[in-house]
């Protein structure tokens, strides 16, 4: 139990409180609950944000299944699978960073956060390699499009698939870039020893964001790389 004596006259005595307790919260527990709840509110909007694009994706997938299979066959599923594993590993290290913060282990926290940063960066580099290959093959919708390895009437629909590919992976990659930026800030704070069992909300909230972005990819990988159907065979 806490042995802090609650002062009866707040003007006379100030009970010692945590340096990171914001003045509008009663205590660290309330502050922690408010921040995780607020993050989930934000993630609810994110779920609906990606949900809207995915709903459009599915409507066109049902309309043009052949074009979707051909489009997915243009993807490098090996790189996609490697990136899926990379992101899952980064989610593990992120979860372990939160655990280290809960246990007040500064070194473990910093190490796990840096590993998360590295895996996140590896993901973005691999994604960049894929983007470069698509660009070279002319798989970028619009004026840059010069891919025509399918029946002429199918090509515009493959272009539509690639529009969804670039939009969905682009939005996801943007979230990853923001996540990497946030990680740098959290690493700096962890390094300074800000976090411990009393106060690990920022690490927890960072984790919620990172895991959410991982979940988006868990769906994007099969949706964009692994569609079985006519034309799904490469070459």
């Amino acid at each position, binding site marked *: 139990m806490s042995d802090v004596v609650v002062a009866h006259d707040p003007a006379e005595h100030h009970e010692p409180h945590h340096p990171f307790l914001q003045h509008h919260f009663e*205590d660290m527990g309330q502050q922690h609950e408010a921040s995780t709840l607020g993050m989930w509110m934000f993630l*609810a909007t994110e779920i609906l944000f990606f949900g809207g694009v995915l709903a459009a994706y599915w409507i066109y997938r049902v309309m043009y299944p052949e074009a979707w299979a051909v489009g997915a066959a243009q993807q490098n599923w090996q790189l996609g699978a490697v990136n899926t594993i990379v992101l899952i590993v980064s989610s593990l290290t992120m979860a372990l960073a939160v*655990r280290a913060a809960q246990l007040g282990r500064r070194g473990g926290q910093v190490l796990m956060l840096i590993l998360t940063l590295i895996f996140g960066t590896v993901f973005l580099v691999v994604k960049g390699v894929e983007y470069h290959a698509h660009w070279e093959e002319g798989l970028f919708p619009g004026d840059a499009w010069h891919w025509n390895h399918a029946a002429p009437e199918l090509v515009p629909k493959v272009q539509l698939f690639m529009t969804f590919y670039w939009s969905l992976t682009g939005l996801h990659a943007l979230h990853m870039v923001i996540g990497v930026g946030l990680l740098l800030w959290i690493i700096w704070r962890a390094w300074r020893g800000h976090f411990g069992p009393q106060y690990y909300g920022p690490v927890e909230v960072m984790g919620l964001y990172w895991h959410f972005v991982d979940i988006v990819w868990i769906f994007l990988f099969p949706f964009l790389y692994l*569609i079985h159907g006519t034309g799904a065979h490469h070459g």
Partner: protein
Amino acid sequence: MAEEHAPEVHVTPLWIYIVIFLALALGTILTVAASRFDLGMWNTPIALVIATIKAVLVILFFMHVIHSTRLTWVVIIGAFLWLGVLFVLTFADYLTRGWQLT
């Protein structure tokens, strides 16, 4: 005056994180493996089911929702409920029209 309370710290044992990670990796391998075979109409549902299981594992364990307050559960369930409305009503419209698709 409200009693001082610290965050409730549920430290998940290390082995749980490792098991969840292995399950996620296995799910990824299964998704890729299943996509290599022509399972007729079953390819898409299998991919969806595996992805959903992976997402639920991440949400419950990596995101600590299993230890979260009921209010947090309400927000999360509400979010997916609205996602369901978005999908069900949109598809109920688009997929029931007799459009001539070329």
